Structure formats: structure tokens, C-alpha cells
């Protein structure tokens, strides 16, 4: 029997999204095949990894991921510069966790100032994330979208409960937008429809189907991503064609596997490597399921995933 490679071509294509301005702008998405299937179609853009930083010191991060940033993380501006200049970050994701009412409850104005300061210190693209408190985010994200006007940032996350004001602010200030729903392809589709019905350009959206950590729901995110990507490609479903983001750090660095010392659990092996591997394996899994943008924390996990992407492209 002769072997004919069973290659496939698809009806649809993922939109490519560009963030940032000038030479340092980055573009992701744009492929018309499943992730890394360069052998049967086009994969024009390399996935992008953004380093996560936050507006307040990372006292809630476990020690092994606090450490690489310990000399800079008391100040978001220093932290951002460190990621750009020392770690060669291609993008930075600033999480305004300090605005959460249960945390420092910083005001929208404070958040806007932080965003302005960070933007004036860096030239790589910025992703601006709220604290995931639906109500507070709807005022915080409006203020920061204005503060970052015309810098072509990604603002997020718009959820079903708060998308209206956030979408309007992203539109008025020329930003891209993350639309997040909870691990359900239909909810994700519906939210993208609601947002585009407001007049928001579907080619400026980034879908967040909600992330999770290895061992803690990874298989759900993985399968929802695969299903979204198949809907985009095989059914040419335009509402499912925005690229996807996996916001990994916050899920990975709260579980026991990234925190328990080897002395307590000798069978789990060395803690520093275990944490890095946990973040890197989670990230890599979502990449092959369909994510084009990753938000990560540990520099060595980022490095490993970059090497992996290199081998995938190479």
C-alpha cells in the first residue's frame, strides 16, 4: 500500500492581532491550520509570551517565583523594566490585583497612574489586566484604557457581567480586548457575539476560555481550546476566530505542587524545578491546544517554553 500523507486543509483562519506600537509591536495568530501544523498550511506568527507583573508587591506569590524578581518587585515600573531589559520580554502583562476590594482596594485613579508610569518606562507592548472582580474592573479598566490611549494595549478581561463598559473603553481608546468566559465553548462564543454586537471589531478580540493548572482542571481548558480552534477552522465560525490567551501564572502558582518543600514530600522531588516544570508543562499544553498568547511568571519556565517553540518552528 502506498502511503499518501493524510493532510487537511481548513475553511477558516485565526485572525492575527498586533499589539504595541513601532518596532517593538508584536503579532500573534494568523494561522489557517491547527497549532504548529506548518506542514499543511500557514503559521505566520510565533506565539507570544508576556511576563506577568503586578501593581503591588507579589506577597501572595510563592517564594520560588518571588525570588527572581525580589530586587525589583516592590515597584511596578522597575519590575517592568527588568522584564523588558534583563529578561528580554516581548510583552508585559500588568495585573492590577491591588485594586481588588479584598486586597489593597486601590482606586481606579491609582491604577491609571501605575499604567502611565509603566508605559513611559517601557517600549514593549503592554497587556493591562484587572483584578477579576467584575464590578471593580468595570471602573478600573475604563480608567486605565484612557490612561493608555493609542498605545495599542490589550485590556482585560471583559466578562459577561461587566463587558459593556470595558468594551466601550477599549473601543474609544484603540485597544485590543480579552473576552473571558468560564470553560464553556458556548459561553465563549456568546460573549464574543455580544461584544461584536456593540460594534467592537472582531479582529481586535482575544478569547480567554479560562485557564487552569496542570492537575487542576488542565484537561478542561485543553479541550475547550481544541474545540474552539476546530470550530474556527473547520466550520469557519468567525465568532471563534480570535486568537486565544492562556493566563497561566495565577493558576499554577497557587497550588501545592508549586509550593510544598521536598522535605515534606520526598516523592515529589526538588521544589524549584517542580514549580518551573509545572508552569512550563501547563503553558506548553495550552500552546498545542490553540493558545497564541501566554501570560507567565517564572523566567526559567518562559525560557523552557521559548526553547520548545523554537523546536516547533525550527
Amino acid at each position: 500500500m502506498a502511503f499518501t500523507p493524510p493532510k487537511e486543509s481548513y475553511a477558516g483562519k485565526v485572525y492575527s492581532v498586533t499589539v504595541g506600537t513601532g518596532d517593538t509591536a508584536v503579532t500573534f495568530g494568523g494561522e489557517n491550520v491547527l497549532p504548529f501544523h506548518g506542514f499543511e498550511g500557514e503559521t505566520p506568527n510565533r506565539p507570544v509570551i508576556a511576563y506577568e507583573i503586578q501593581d503591588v508587591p507579589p506577597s501572595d506569590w510563592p517564594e520560588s517565583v518571588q525570588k527572581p524578581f525580589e530586587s525589583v518587585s516592590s515597584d511596578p515600573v522597575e519590575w517592568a523594566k527588568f522584564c523588558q531589559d534583563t529578561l528580554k520580554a516581548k510583552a508585559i502583562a500588568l495585573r492590577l490585583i491591588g485594586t481588588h476590594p479584598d486586597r489593597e482596594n486601590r482606586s481606579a485613579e491609582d491604577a491609571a497612574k501605575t499604567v502611565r508610569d509603566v508605559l513611559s518606562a517601557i517600549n514593549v507592548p503592554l497587556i493591562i489586566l484587572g483584578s477579576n472582580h467584575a464590578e471593580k474592573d468595570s471602573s478600573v479598566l475604563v480608567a486605565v484604557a484612557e490612561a493608555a490611549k493609542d498605545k495599542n494595549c490589550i485590556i482585560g478581561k471583559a466578562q459577561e457581567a461587566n463587558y459593556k463598559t470595558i468594551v466601550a473603553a477599549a473601543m474609544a481608546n484603540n485597544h485590543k480586548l480579552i473576552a473571558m468566559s468560564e470553560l464553556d465553548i458556548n459561553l465563549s462564543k456568546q460573549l464574543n457575539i455580544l461584544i461584536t454586537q456593540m460594534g467592537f471589531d472582531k479582529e481586535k478580540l482575544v478569547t480567554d476560555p479560562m485557564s487552569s493548572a496542570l492537575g487542576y482542571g488542565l484537561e478542561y481548558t485543553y479541550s475547550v481550546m481544541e474545540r474552539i480552534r476546530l470550530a474556527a477552522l473547520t466550520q469557519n465560525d468567525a465568532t471563534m476566530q480570535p486568537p486565544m490567551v492562556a493566563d497561566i501564572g495565577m493558576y499554577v502558582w497557587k497550588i501545592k505542587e508549586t509550593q510544598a518543600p521536598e522535605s515534606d514530600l520526598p516523592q515529589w522531588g526538588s521544589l524549584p524545578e517542580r514549580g518551573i516544570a509545572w508552569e512550563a508543562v501547563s503553558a506548553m499544553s495550552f500552546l498545542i491546544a490553540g493558545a497564541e498568547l501566554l501570560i507567565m511568571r517564572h523566567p526559567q519556565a518562559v525560557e523552557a517554553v521559548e526553547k520548545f517553540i523554537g523546536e516547533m518552528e525550527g
Partner: protein
Amino acid sequence: MALTGVEIFKLLPKTNCKKCGHPTCLAFAMKLAQRQASLDACPDVSEEAKKILGEASAPPVRPITLGVGEKAVKMGEETVLFRHDKKFVNPCAFAVEIKDTDEEANVVKTIEAVLDSEIDRVGQKLRVDAIFISNESNDAGALESLSKLVSQKAPDVPVIISTKDPAAAEAALKIFAEKKPILFGANSENLDAMAKVATQFKVTLGITAKGLEELTTLTEKAKSLGVEDMVIDSGARKAKEILEDNTLIRRAAVKKNFKPLGYPVITFAQRDDSMLETLIAALGVAKYSSIIVLSSIEKWKNLALFTLRQNIYTDPQVPMQVEQKIYKIGEPTSDSPLMITTNFSLTYFIVSGEIENSKVPSRLAVMDCEGLSVLTAWAAGKFTAAKIAQFIKESGVENEISHREIIIPGYVAILSGAIEDKLEGWKVTVGPREANALPAFLKSRAS
């Protein structure tokens, strides 16, 4: 592609004798097509029809077993490309490579690491499954002595013997007779001799090729030489090639029923950088490898890979769950604390593990929430005050304990008032949010 009812019908005796228990041959053929009947039921079917039908109904990826006894690993039998379509069937095996050029002290260390690799996660025992014995030296004697050492130190661990030399293969296989090893290393140059050794010892043959076309030729040739059981290597080593070849192999097998590639795939993930190796192996786990060969098995790496394999190979329709009941942890007395959680396996094993760590004997009430985690069950209306109250009352735990206090997960603190309303005479205490805070919480209460 499986045959249709009509295609099958053409191969049957067409006498409508009813001996198969069906009114007509056609009716029987329809049942066969739906895999609701077995061909054995027809006593008159010809040998030739048996052969054709047997081949057509075989699973698209041939089932292979590596090793014997408790540690035997099953592979193959996969039917889909995406896990959301249907559960992936046989989890891939991890094998660590030991070379016959390695120093004996290191060899012994690696064997011991394999024996000590077992980890319990969510109720499953996971371990490095096999040893890949490599004839790096190209010297038959070296392979033989390494094989002896492995079989002595790890008699139960399945092995894959890798050599290009049929004579070396023979000597090594003698050591593992009756243990169902895999002989890996048949290629375009040595296929005839290797096939001979494989059939003589009745072992699975690992075929390695340069590309999928050559692989097809080689498996067909091996088959014509009488080899039935094979595992295949397309020669892909870089991540990009592994994804491409594994995808094309799985597609060819599952969608085209292309038999020459319908065998379990062996993937070589070895890298100098162990973190990168972890990611290459992870690619194999997600994308269709049945055996993944590693160069090292640090415990952190094993844990990450075992966990990914468990995630990818769970049933997408049914979350892993445990039985609803009051679990005793340690030897609780009537005064010991009572806690409640849901029956999602992951939740149960994390929480019960932390209670064990606390060394405070306790009862853990595990409520059936269709395998959902605490917050998911709460959001889905399955872990509500009314349902919790009813479960506690019906569980009979009230007869076992002298107090009336129940500790609930911190994430559902919001339920505490409503539970107190519905469970008369009970006090609800809100526990910590994350289970890893349970030991400190329980110890401080106990003192």
C-alpha cells in the same frame, strides 16, 4: 474504515439458516457492522471471509502489551484524534534509557530510581513504566551484561531492548524470555534478520525508519515475514517532526484505517536540557505517542509528566469521582472533627491527604455532587445548604459522633448560615479555603 452491513453480507453464506440467532444473514450482517454481534456466532462462515472481516473489525491502532504481570503496560487501541470526542484509551508508557556504555554505578542508580518512582495521585499508582536498554556500544557482550544486570535488579520492570545487531538481540532476548519485552531497532538494513529473531522469541518488534513512507514499506515487509506485533518510529526527533509524524500516523490509522501505520508509536524525547526534555515528552503525551523514551527521571519531572498523562487520558464525559460516604481518617472517636466536601476525586484526595498530614483523626463526609469540585458544585447548585443538610441527616453520622459541629470548605463560607438553619442543633465552622491550610487549622483546634 469499517465495513458496512451490505459489504459484510456479501461475505456471509447467504443461506438464512438462523443458526446465528438472527432471522437472516443480512440481519446478522447489520449487527456485525454495529459491533453488536460476534462473527463466531455463524458456524458456516468461510475461512476467507473470517480473515477479511477480522482485519476490517480490528481496532485502527493495534493493541500491544509490554511486559507481564502487574507492571505490564497496554498500548494502542486508540480510536480518535481529539480527547473531547472520546476517551483516549491506553495511557502512554514512560521508559528511561540506560546505555550499555554507562558506568555500572550510574546504571544501578537509574534502576533504583525506576523502582522508587511510584507516586500515588488521585488514587492511581503512577510510575516509570519501562527501561529502554540501549546497545550504544554496538558490542553484543556489553548489551548482554547490561541486560543481565537489569533483569537481576528489576525483574518485574518491562524492558525494551534496542540494538541494530540481530545476534546481540538474540543474546539479550534470552535473558527476558517469557517477559514480553520489545525488540527495537529493525531498519531497512537488518529487517529480515530482526524479523526472524522477533518471531522466534515471539516479541513485539520496534521498527525505525527515515520518514513515513519508508516506515510503511518496512511494516508491510515485517508483516509479510510473519511479525504481527510492532511499535513504530518514523525517525522524528525534533518537536516539529514529532507533532507532524504523530499526527499523520494517527490520522492515517483512525480516519483511513491505513493498517501499515496502525501501530503504537515510540517517541524519543531525550535532550541535554532536562526541562526541555520534559516539554518534548509532554508533547508526546498529548499528541499520540504510546511509548516515550527519556534520558533521566528526576522526581519533579515524573510528577509533572504523570499528572499530564492522567489529565489527557481522563474520560472527558465523566469526571473522576469517589463514593459518597463518611470516610474515617486515622481512628476517629466520637469527639473527632467532622468535615464535608464533594466527591470529585481530585478534591477528595487533596483534602483527605491534608487531613492525614495533620495526624488529627477525623471524619470526612463526602457528598455526591456528580464529581464536581467544591466551587463548581456550588455554582452548579449541587452543593447547597439544603442538600448538605439532607445528606448529613441521612448519612447516619449523627449516631457516630457526640458533638454537632461540621467544618465546611472556606470557599463556601457563604453557606454557613443557611446550613445552620436547615440542620437544627448543629454548629457550622468555616474551615480554611485551601486544603493545605488544614493541618495547621486542625492542629490548633486540637490543642
